[in-house]
Structures are given as structure tokens and as C-alpha cells.
């Protein structure tokens, strides 16, 4: 059976984790939630580092099934684990750190070679260094490569960027995107940063107080009005698009998706390439008719699917749909009433700004 099937129950002194999840067997699944929601605990249970009761199955391989008294210890699970803080062995060089896991994998079972991993994470020049001479970002890249070299069937990442400053984060995110694009294995990614989730996650699990609040594709999860994600100050939706064409005169790139097309400042991407875009709720306004006298380029016909409360009482959230693609707009309640917006109405979504993520 393909996919991840996780059922973990763990009772701690002041906290109960009780999670049942069926997740896709490939791509990045983000475990998202406030601190103390049990994200890391859940990840540790999947790894066997914390002893929960329940069942863990990864693409057909059973790691734990307490109903028949089966529990595989961590070192026998085909997983890679990237810890939040630097976890390199300080008594070993970078090379020896990389080899620590690799040498325990029989040659016939190795799917990721040392060269490939080093190339993927850009660490070839660090091989003979001591771990104490590396920057935080370099350490984390070595730790990721070390985990990959065990040819895992599941990669677990516990806020791998949390201990890094914004600059290092930007330095390492492209490598994580490459992991996402080039690895065939599923990744469970713990995060409490919505920008990381927007960039990396295909699937999103929302945790609160040890419980799964919701689980689904990131595109739909971000646009759900009943989830706290939409109420965040920088609430946004993501849309996976394809590069359709470039306009050399105006230096624009046209991106297409199910609900229409969008133009962004020209990006160095080949036609046909995949591009994930993020549209923040605050950058979307609503008009009753397409106003050609507006400077806003991206005006798309949309339908109002519902309203929700925003953080500030002056504002409200409007969930729009562009033929199957959800979009969020944050407008004032005053405008909503003045325009007489109601569910089911056909309107024009005016998108002021689009961030191209990859």
C-alpha cells in the first residue's frame, strides 16, 4: 500500500498527542501548528525516538503496530532525520559525519551516492573541514546530506531552518526546493513558519494541542476560512502554475493555471516550467466589473464562495474561486456592504502583487 499511515497516541504529563493521519506517499507534507502543538513529538513518534502506541506504515513497510506488539527500534527504520539545531558529531570531520550513516547501508541498497548528495546540497568543498568551522547553514546542509546518504524511505525534518537567521534561511531554502523536486521519497517537514510551508509543502497537516485539526493539499488548506491560517496577518494562497510565454517588450512573464492566467515581472524560467506563486489576501481587492482604467494588470473573473472573519474587526475575508482555484481577499467590511457582496456573486478579483516562489 502506498502512502504514509500514522496513528500515534502518547500521553505525557501535561500533554496528550493523538494523531491519525493518512498522507501521500510522495512530496512534502508540512506539519504545521503553534509551538507546543505536538509537531515535533509526532515526528519523534514516527521515528521511534518517542514511544507512542499505535501504528506507523511507510509506503508498505510497517515500522510499528502495537496491535500485534510490533515496534521497530529507530536504528532499524529506513528514515532520515534532520534535527532542528546542528546535530553533527563534533568528534568527526564533515566527511566522517557523512560516512557515519552511509557505511551502515549495504552497497546494494544505496540509492543516493556521496557525490550526488554533495552536489545536491553544495557541500563538496567542506569535506575535510572540522564541524566547528562551518556556518549554521553549512552545518544544516551537511546534516541533510548525511541523512540522505542512508537512502531513507522517509525523510523527517524538524524545523531545519528554525535555528538560522533570515539570510541563512534564504541560502538553504533553494536546496530544500531541490530536494522536493529531485527526490522520490516523501518528506515530513515540521514548521511553524507559514512562508516555508507555502514554498515547500504539497500537503499540509494542521496540529493543535496534540490533535490533527485538518489535513489536505496546501493549495486548498491555505484558502480555508475555517482554519486559523486564513486569519493570519500574511494569509495567502499558493497556486501551482506553468510558464506560458514571455513578453519581451514589457518584460513580463505569463503564467497559466486552471483558473486563468497571471502576468508577473519577467522571470528567467523556460516556457513550460513549473512555477509556484503566492498571492497574499491583502493584495487582492474586489471589483464588480473589470475596470480598464485601473493600473492593476491582473484582473480575473471570480466567484464569491464565502466570507470569514479577519484579525481586525474592520476587515473581513472573502473566499473567491477562479474556476477551481481558490483565492483569498481581505477587504474592509465597509466595502463589502457598499458593494453588496454576497455568496455566489460573480466579481472581478484584482491582484496587486504576486510572489513567484520557484
Amino acid at each position, binding site marked *: 500500500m502506498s502512502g504514509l499511515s500514522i496513528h500515534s497516541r502518547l500521553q505525557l504529563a501535561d500533554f496528550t498527542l493523538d494523531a491519525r493521519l493518512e498522507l501521500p506517499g510522495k512530496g512534502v507534507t508540512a506539519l504545521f501548528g503553534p509551538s507546543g502543538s505536538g509537531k515535533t513529538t509526532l515526528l519523534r513518534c514516527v*521515528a*521511534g*525516538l518517542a514511544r507512542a502506541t499505535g501504528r506507523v506504515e511507510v509506503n508498505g513497510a510497517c515500522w510499528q503496530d502495537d496491535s500485534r506488539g510490533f515496534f521497530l*527500534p*529507530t*536504528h*532499524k527504520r529506513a*528514515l*532520515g*532525520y534532520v*534535527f532542528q539545531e546542528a*546535530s553533527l*558529531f*563534533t*568528534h568527526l570531520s564533515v566527511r566522517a559525519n557523512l560516512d*557515519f*550513516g552511509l557505511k*551502515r*547501508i549495504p552497497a546494494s541498497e544505496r540509492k543516493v551516492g556521496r557525490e550526488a548528495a554533495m552536489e545536491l546540497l553544495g557541500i563538496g568543498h567542506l569535506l575535510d573541514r572540522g564541524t566547528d568551522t562551518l556556518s549554521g547553514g553549512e552545518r544544516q546542509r551537511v546534516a541533510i546530506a*548525511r*541523512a540522505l546518504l*542512508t537512502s531513507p524511505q522517509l525523510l523527517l525534518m524538524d524545523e531545519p531552518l528554525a535555528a538560522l537567521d533570515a539570510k541563512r534561511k534564504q541560502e538553504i531554502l533553494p536546496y530544500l526546493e531541490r530536494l522536493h523536486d529531485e527526490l522520490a521519497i516523501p518528506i515530513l517537514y515540521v514548521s511553524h513558519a507559514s512562508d516555508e510551508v507555502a514554498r515547500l509543502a504539497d500537503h499540509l497537516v494542521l496540529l493543535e494541542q496534540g490533535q490533527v485539526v485538518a489535513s489536505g493539499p496546501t493549495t486548498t488548506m491555505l484558502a480555508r476560512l475555517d482554519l486559523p491560517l486564513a486569519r493570519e496577518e500574511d494569509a495567502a494562497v499558493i497556486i501551482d502554475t506553468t510558464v506560458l510565454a514571455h513578453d519581451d517588450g514589457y518584460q513580463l512573464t505569463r503564467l497559466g493555471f486552471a483558473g486563468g492566467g497571471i502576468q508577473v515581472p519577467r522571470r528567467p524560467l523556460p516556457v513550460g516550467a513549473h512555477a509556484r506563486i503566492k498571492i497574499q489576501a491583502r493584495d487582492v481587492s474586489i471589483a464588480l466589473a473589470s475596470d480598464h482604467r485601473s493600473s492593476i494588470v491582473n484582473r480575473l473573473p471570480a466567484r464569491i464562495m464565502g466570507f470569514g472573519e479577519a484579525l481586525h474587526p474592520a476587515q473581513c475575508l472573502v473566499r473567491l474561486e477562479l474556476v477551481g482555484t481558490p483565492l483569498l481577499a481581505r477587504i474592509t467590511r465597509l466595502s463589502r456592504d457598499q458593494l453588496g457582496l454576497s455568496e455566489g456573486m460573480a466579481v472581478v478579483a484584482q491582484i496587486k502583487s504576486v510572489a513567484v516562489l520557484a
Partner: protein
Amino acid sequence: MTLTPDDWSAIRLTLELASIVTLLLLIIGTPLAWWLARSRSRWRGAVGAVVALPIVLPPTVLGFYLLVAMGPQGPVGQLTEALGLGRLPFTFAGLVVASLIYSLPFVVQPIQHAFMAMGERPLEVAATLRASPLETFFTVALPLARPGFVTAAILGFAHTVGEFGVVLMIGGNIPDQTRVLSMQIYNHVEALEYGQAHGLSAGLLVFSFVVLLGLNLLGGTRNTLGAGR
């Protein structure tokens, strides 16, 4: 002042005793320190206290009870007799056994602190990299605790070299068998041979200073029993 053959014999005996005891203590002390550092057993506190006893107990008290235990009526004495090993008091083997107990905390505690200081994380990391608990112990825990082992070996050795009370109670003063350096100094003083006593005492003084200086240079410890980081 020159050292007499008896002095040389005492020095040789002392170094032999300290080397054997240190080696045995590293072997016995490592699993004990590992257990003390990581066990959640309710016996942990009690065992830790027993291990630490020799730090606070007057050596004569310790020596007295060891003498009683190893004597013909004592449990250890009866065991060794039954095993055909004879009696331990007033033998070199008896000194080794007594010194093992006497110096135990000075070896166990630095190693224990080193194991505790490294925390759970390196062991978890090793497990996620497919290392079994035994492999993890040898390839991760031991190397990371190395400074603790250096401290433990030096302290255990130096402490055994300096013991007097326990030796007096259990070993007596038999040349070539139990007459260690501290006994020899005592003999010289008894015989009013202050020159000879100076020679050996100054030697021990310099030895102890060099050991502590070495420890500080290694940066192994802040104080004699601090965490071996």
C-alpha cells in the same frame, strides 16, 4: 640524599598498584558511570551515594570495614577462602581491591558527568543513522566523553598513589608487597630519617602538582571533580 633500594621498591610498587587500579577502574567504572548517567531507576540515587562514599569517609573507616569484610570471619574473606584464593588482607591483591573501592568515585564521576553533558541528542542522531545502541556507545558516546576519561584516569591514578589510611589498615607495611610510597614516607618519619622523608614527599608533591597542572592545561576540569567536558 639518595634513595635506598627500599625507597625504589616502594615507588615501583606504588606505580604498579596505581596502574592496575586505574586500568581496572576504567573498565568497571565506564558501565557504572553510563548507568548512573542514563538510568531512570529509583536505585540510581542510592548507588550514586554509595559510589561517592569514599570521598567523604575517613580512609581509616573504609580500611577498617574492608579489613573486617576480608578477614576470616567476613563475607569477602569466606568467599575468597572458599574459592581457594586465600585471604586478601596484607597482600598486594588486597591492596588492589581496597584501592578499587577507595578510588572508585574519582574515576566514575568524571565519566558520568561527561556522559551526562553530551545529552541524549548525539545518541538519537546515531540511531537515525542506523547505528545500533552498542555501535553508538563505542563510536559516539565514548569518543565524545574522551575528556572525561582523561580526567578520570589521571584522578584515579593520582588518588591511588596518595592513599595512606586504607593501606595502613589493610595492607600493613610488608616490603615488596604492600609497602607503598606513603607507607615508606611514614616509616622514614618514624625512624626520624627526615632527609629520606623529604626526598619522597617532595617527589609526591611535584608529581601531584604536575598532574593538576596537566589537567588544567587540558582544560578538562574546572575543579577536581567537576564535569569532564
